[in-house]
């Protein structure tokens, strides 16, 4: 039982990280109808920037304090992501307004390639560490209930808190601020929003910035857990089934979908994997999402798809 709980918790933690990446997808899709394949590349780019700035800034400025250095690196990486978002909007998306979904998807694939190359050209292509001072040693809880207790990674808990905080912040931003309202209006209906004087292009820049920040947080957490290297970009591919499970347009869907996929992946790997040769977590999520799609094509929380001629 203790082992089952451990697996479950591990799954929830991974799932939360998937949710973070999926959140980036959902935000952009909601506000601009672009299926952003570059989200993974953005996560890698952000994490690379953060890891390298955390090395460079203390060297340049002579700061010893790790926390200040990390905060400065985070801010610097955030600024870089803002610039990236602005450039993407101005150089790419602005010229592709009203194109078909497939074309936009391809454009983001192009952006993904470009960011992959650019990130590694600027920041180097080795494997880097992000050290934000998370405690590494695991804690054992519930020892009285189960034999051996349940092992929890403290860094996972911290990561969960950060992610939950980010989601809460985003919710507040979307619900309470004027910009948030404008964003929701654009998500609802581009033309109507434009006709009441909401500047579309600025909204898109903001959305891509928010997605960039989400990517930065996701990259930071993944990076501090597993190190920053090229394989981080493929995290996006792992997070895609989350989006279709939760629905492309739903923020809660991304979070709950992420948790379901994370748990399903871990449980299937542990309890099903040994029978079929292991390594099934790669495709299990996809097949889960696929089977689900057959019964509910719009995803868990997606908007109902109505066909009209």
């Amino acid at each position, binding site marked *: 039982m203790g082992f089952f709980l451990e697996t479950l918790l591990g799954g929830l933690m991974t799932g939360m990280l998937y949710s973070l990446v999926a959140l980036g997808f959902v935000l952009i899709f909601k506000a601009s109808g672009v299926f952003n394949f570059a989200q993974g590349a953005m996560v890698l780019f952000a994490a690379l920037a953060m890891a390298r700035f955390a090395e460079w800034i203390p060297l340049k400025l002579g700061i010893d304090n790790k926390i200040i250095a990390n905060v400065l690196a985070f801010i610097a990486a955030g600024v870089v992501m803002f610039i990236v978002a602005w450039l993407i909007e101005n150089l790419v998306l602005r010229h592709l307004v009203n194109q078909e979904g497939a074309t936009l998807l391809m454009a983001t694939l192009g952006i993904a390639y470009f960011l992959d*190359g650019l990130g590694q050209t600027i920041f180097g292509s080795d494997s880097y560490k992000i050290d934000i001072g998370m405690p590494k040693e695991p804690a054992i809880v519930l020892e009285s209930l189960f034999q051996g207790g349940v092992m929890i990674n403290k860094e996972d808990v911290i990561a969960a808190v950060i992610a939950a905080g980010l989601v809460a912040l985003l919710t507040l931003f979307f619900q309470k601020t004027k910009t948030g309202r404008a964003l929701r209006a654009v998500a609802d209906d581009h033309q109507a929003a434009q006709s009441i004087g909401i500047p579309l292009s600025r909204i898109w820049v903001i959305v891509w910035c928010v997605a960039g920040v989400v990517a930065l947080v996701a990259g930071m957490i993944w990076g501090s857990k597993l190190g920053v290297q090229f394989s981080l970009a493929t995290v996006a591919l792992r997070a895609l089934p989350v989006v279709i499970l939760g629905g492309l347009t739903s923020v809660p869907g991304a979070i709950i979908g992420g948790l379901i996929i994370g748990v399903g992946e871990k449980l299937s790997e542990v309890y099903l994997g040994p029978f079929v040769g292991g390594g099934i977590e790669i495709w299990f999520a996809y097949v889960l999402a696929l089977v689900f799609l057959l019964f509910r094509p719009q995803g868990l929380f997606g908007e109902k798809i109505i066909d009209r001629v």
Partner: protein
Amino acid sequence: MFYRENGQFKTTYRADLQIFPILQDRIAIGLILAAAFVLVPMLSSEYMLKAILIPFLILALAAIGVNILVGYCGQISLGSGAFMSVGAYAAYNVYVRLPGVPLVLTLLLGGFFAALVGILFGIPSLRVRGLYLAVATLAAQFVCDWAFLRIGWFTNNSTSGSVSVSNLQMFGLTIETPLQKYLFCLTFLVVFALLAKNLVRSAVGREWMAIRDMDVAAAVIGIRPMYAKLSAFAVSSFVIGVAGALWGFVNLGSWEPAAFSVDRSFQLLFMVIIGGMGSIMGSFLGAAFIVVLPIVLNLALPLIGQLVGVEISTAGIEHTQVMIFGALIVWFLIVEPHGLAKLWSMAKQKLRTWPFPH
């Protein structure tokens, strides 16, 4: 003026409906075929054949397959690499387990199994479309990658999932030298391109296009979406599977699942988009572009680096290549979203009206 079609009168339906109704096109195609079968083998070097022409032919074949599904039937698929791998590994299994089967039949059987798998993964297309479907087809990619790596039966129990074939023969002729391989692939490509062209002109092809343009409306006028979509998946994956089998058997000789990774799927989709969706000729142009571009960049980048006085490392070249590739794709989508085939048809129109532009 250069491309005059007035005066070419059609007096029968047959003449009116042929693939190349204009005399100049027929002549040009004849010349191109003659050049491909006679001139190219005489002129090109072994490197040229091996590094450029054979990959181009096989990937063009695969691009035709992807174009049938994505361009003609409108079902975006990111699982093309998987169908290629199914074709390759199925053909390998036929090759190992049924020794007497002729090579051509082996390759076609590879395509047949790819078609079966394609139908299986096409089932979601009945419920979802567009971007959801694109993600759903990624499932095929991951399941196939995993299956060929982990399930020993498919690879005849080789440990790393890598398999190899040798001594390819057809009708007593060996297919060993690059030249023989080139001619073999070229024959396949020409036959399949002709079949595909005819298929998309037929009733089935028109059903696909109706589904692509508006599937609900197509269903209302009596086209069965299930039949149309699944047939598109089947035909497309058959062609892709044959291309995959050729890629493994003829181009690589020995291969592992990584040869058909998700990058291959993206590459095939790029070919279709850059070449032109819904155009058989576009598949050729797109494949040529995608195959030649990395080679050109590989040669050009160090030279440019020397001109500017910067020594570019190997990794640097690789990164720059990826960047330029990405930027070019975006640029292409912005400047010409309908692909190279559209550029060609515009050029044709200009030639037709020259020197008076209206």
